[in-house]
């Protein structure tokens, strides 16, 4: 049992001869408080998997449950509310609103949900991601790393069941990327925040508890993470086959 339960998920794009199978039958569980990395080369289906798990896309067949709720049958409104309350996002390109300050961006999910922010909680999140002195700045006045910290805080603030991070370091230099990963890891540890991160960077995957390797729409390996070298070895092994 996990907060994410996927069973025999397939996803087919297009029809007839031009049909492409992005996912060909994936089952997985992510336990509460776990930090899982999803790895795989381009076209392996890792992004599609994340979109389906996050309720942004629908599987062609199979089921997905978040925190025990079957989500594949939900309508748009129900899915939106699911995302609002149970899911947080961290994107590769940050996706902050340029008109809002860092703090306003962080509070945005609560605003949208119409719920009152708990002052202490918000302060703790802002402190945790290390944005204390930059909170009044607008995205354009922040560095890439700072922007991603805002995005992580925004994902944390609504205490979602699970955070999905889509290549969170993909648009950052390696030093800044490492900082961001550390922030994520700390958040998982401090708040027992279940997190799923899609990445093709072995170094990034190494900070997770567990790595899932996808190839051609199937999970080909599911292993605990030791270090980047171990993951590189697995990748090399997979590509050699």
């Amino acid at each position, binding site marked *: 049992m996990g907060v994410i339960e996927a069973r025999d998920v397939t996803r087919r794009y297009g029809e007839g001869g031009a049909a492409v199978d992005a996912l060909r039958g994936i089952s997985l569980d992510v336990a509460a408080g776990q930090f899982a990395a999803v790895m795989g080369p381009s076209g392996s289906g890792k992004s599609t998997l994340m979109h389906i798990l996050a309720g*942004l896309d629908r599987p062609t067949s199979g089921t997905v449950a978040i925190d025990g709720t079957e989500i594949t049958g939900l309508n748009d*409104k129900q899915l939106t*509310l699911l995302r*609002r*309350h149970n899911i947080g*996002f961290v*994107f590769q390109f940050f996706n902050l*609103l340029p*008109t*809002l300050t860092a703090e306003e961006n962080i509070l945005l999910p609560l605003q949208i949900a119409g719920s009152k922010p708990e002052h202490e909680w918000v302060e703790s999140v802002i402190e945790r991601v290390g944005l204390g002195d930059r909170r009044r700045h607008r995205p354009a006045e922040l560095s890439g790393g700072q922007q991603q910290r805002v995005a992580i805080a925004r994902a944390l603030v609504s205490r979602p069941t699970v955070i999905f991070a889509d290549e969170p370091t993909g648009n950052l230099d390696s030093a800044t990327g490492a900082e961001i990963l550390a922030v994520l890891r700390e958040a998982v540890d401090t708040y027992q925040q279940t997190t799923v991160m899609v990445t093709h960077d072995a170094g990034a995957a190494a900070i997770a508890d567990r790595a899932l390797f996808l190839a051609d729409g199937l999970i080909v390996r599911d292993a605990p993470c030791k270090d980047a070298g171990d993951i590189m070895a697995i990748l090399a092994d997979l590509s050699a086959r």
Partner: protein
Amino acid sequence: MTRYALRSMASHKLRTALTAIAIVLGTAMMAGTFVITDQIRNAFSDIFGTSFAGTDVYLSRRPAFGNGTGGAQVGPLPASLIGRVRAIDGVSKADGQIQAIGSLVVHGKYLSSQGGAPNLVVSTLPKPFNENTLVDGHYPNGPNQVALIQQTADDHDLKVGQHVGLTTLQGVKPVTIVGVFQFGDVSSIGGSTIIATTFSDAQRWYDRVGKTSTISVDGEPGISPAALKRRIGAQLPHWVKVQTGTEAAKEQTDEISGAINSFFTPALLAFAGAAVLVGAFVIFNTFSITVAQRMREFAMLRTIGAMRRQVLSTVLGEALMVGVMASVIGILAGVGFAKLLGALFKAIGFGLPLAGISVHAWPGVIVPLAVGVLVTLAASFAPARRATRVPPIAALREGAVLPRTWLSRFTPYIAGLALLAGILLVFQGVTGSGPTTQRLLTIAGGAILSFIGLAMVSRYLIRPLARAIGWPLSIGRGASGRLARENTTRNTGRTAVTAAALMIGIGLVVFFSVLINGFKQSFIGSIDESITSNLIIQSHSQGNPVPEDAVRAAQGVPGVDTALGVAFTQVKIGHGGTDAANGIDPATLPRLYKFQWQKGGSDALLGRLHGDDALVEEQFAKSHHLAPGDTFQVTSIDGRHVTMHEIGQYKDPVLFSGFMVSRGTYSELTTDHNPQVLLVRYASGTDENATTRAVRQALKPFPDVNVQTNSEFKDSFSKQINQLLYLLYILLAMSVVISLFGIVNTLALSVFERTREIGMLRAIGTTRFQLRQTILYESVITAIIGGILGIVIGVVLAWVVSLGFRSSGIVFAIPYGQVIVSLIVAAIAGAVAAAFPARRAARLNVLEALQYE
């Protein structure tokens, strides 16, 4: 590059269509104006052509001066002239005709014409002068017989043999309908009622015994109308105007054409111009946004070797094609617009005869085409220039920003100067001297300049305005309200131009509301202040007098203290323009009218008003440099000269402009000395309602007079003014509609630009409804900004114009109710405009939006 521009348009069909509509509507108004004015002109040309088809030579009284508006009626000719003309060698036939105003009374009810067209009474002319076609019965050939035009008979279900009444200057006369005719071969002329009587009946009933209005002459075979005209002219006094039938038809047609060309066409074109100006704003904005959005595309073109000039021609090429396409569609739509206008005029009571629709290359096609294309090109030039400044490196970098030009530092000052200069120009146009056309053009130019200036300045007002307007939303409506407010201030230039397009429409609406309200308040205020009568009585037919018998009948009603007829006509003053001569009874007027005496005058002056004495209005004295004791020359329409002697001055530029003389003297200045207005005051202590009923009863024999209490009179005056205002609103609605398309376009482009942002918002839990609300609020905030700016500029311009009319007694009065309504209309317009872009945004696929680059 042409192909490139074409492709770009084709791949953005919606954007192209929305941009084009901005120009389509303006050019349609323009083309429609030419079509409908042509229809009116042709209709009148047909009417007069028919009237004079069988007439070789036409005699009438020569007016002493051009017949201005509200003009004096030219007097009759002596009937003895008919005999004299008949005796002239070469004349085969000559007959007189009386033309008067009157209509039928059926079952006690006065038949008005449709939509303010005249109620005409004419005496029947024999062949060959009579160009009417009998449909039923015969023409009147004995006393108390009438024939009527088919439309009137049809409208009121009148049949030959029916006994009805006819209003005359001697009360209602019993008549029998003996015939129904068509005018030429049409059943109606623009809704006029036309009643034909015999010549002698008309002479007796309309104060023309021994006289005739006109004389129609038919020549012997072999003599040309021109030769006959010369021969007749040589034998008659100079005050008889002798024309060939063709000349008379042409002169009357030209008179109508002149009125159309000098007022109707420019007025309609001004509204079309406003629509085109709004369209220009929309085009400027759309091109600015798309150029910004296509920066990477232009940079790419530049990296692969496109010259700046080529980038410029890509954008201008697109503008050219949009302009041509939109103008052509607009010209076609113009025909529909002309029909709409025709129906509109009829609906609000402007009965105009309309000939068939015909479109002429000049000016009906060429002018709208040229204006549409040039305006589109001009409006897109600045954005096109900006496109050329995109550096090639922008192709590789996300979020490249265009360099600011050195000029942009001065923009706020230039904008402020333009705004001020515009307002000053309007003031100069209103107060300055010079030809009317030139002054109107100055006013129009000033208004355009001030609109553009305010549009540029408003960029700096967007932030505070949006903050203030969005405040309640951000408190009450949570995230949607706050995001909407932030979005309106995101690109202030864009919001400013979008709002400015709406500002023009709302600004003009407010401008006219304020100005016309001022006029209304001045008139009503003057009545309240000065007129102490209980009743104000006029004819139902515009410009028709109240018979003296009616005045006497009112005076005879118990409880009536004073019944006073007031007559007025236009006369020529010295060698200059015309002004009003008011004929009053000095003994009774002060009982009904409170004088505002100037230069130490008092009611005692009225006792001295005899002979050639005149009391002059302050403005009249000023413009003719008169002081008490001075004299001035007056010429009546019939050419009689009288020297007036000023004995005092009063102030009332609204009700009694010009000068006042006693009724006796007045009758020397006109042939029609019946009063136009009858004021009735009750004796103190009488039961007002009972007396009013008694007066109505006593005036029953004069069904064409309209008995109104002062408040009824003011109400019906207000109603008439409001109808004019509604017409203006409808004409301005087009400008508002165009700006609405502008809002739709801007929002749609903004939504497109923020695709990824919308994806993110949806991903983190924003519902479709919340997203739609955000866009709705953004639109409403923008629209309210436009409304507020419009109200400000409208009120300021109206105030400036009212300054110019202060001497004519026009006050400046803001109709707060109407102003608030216009703001609400702006907000509603914003809500309507949001519908489509909001739907689009809500429908975006979250995943695709997130991955959108």
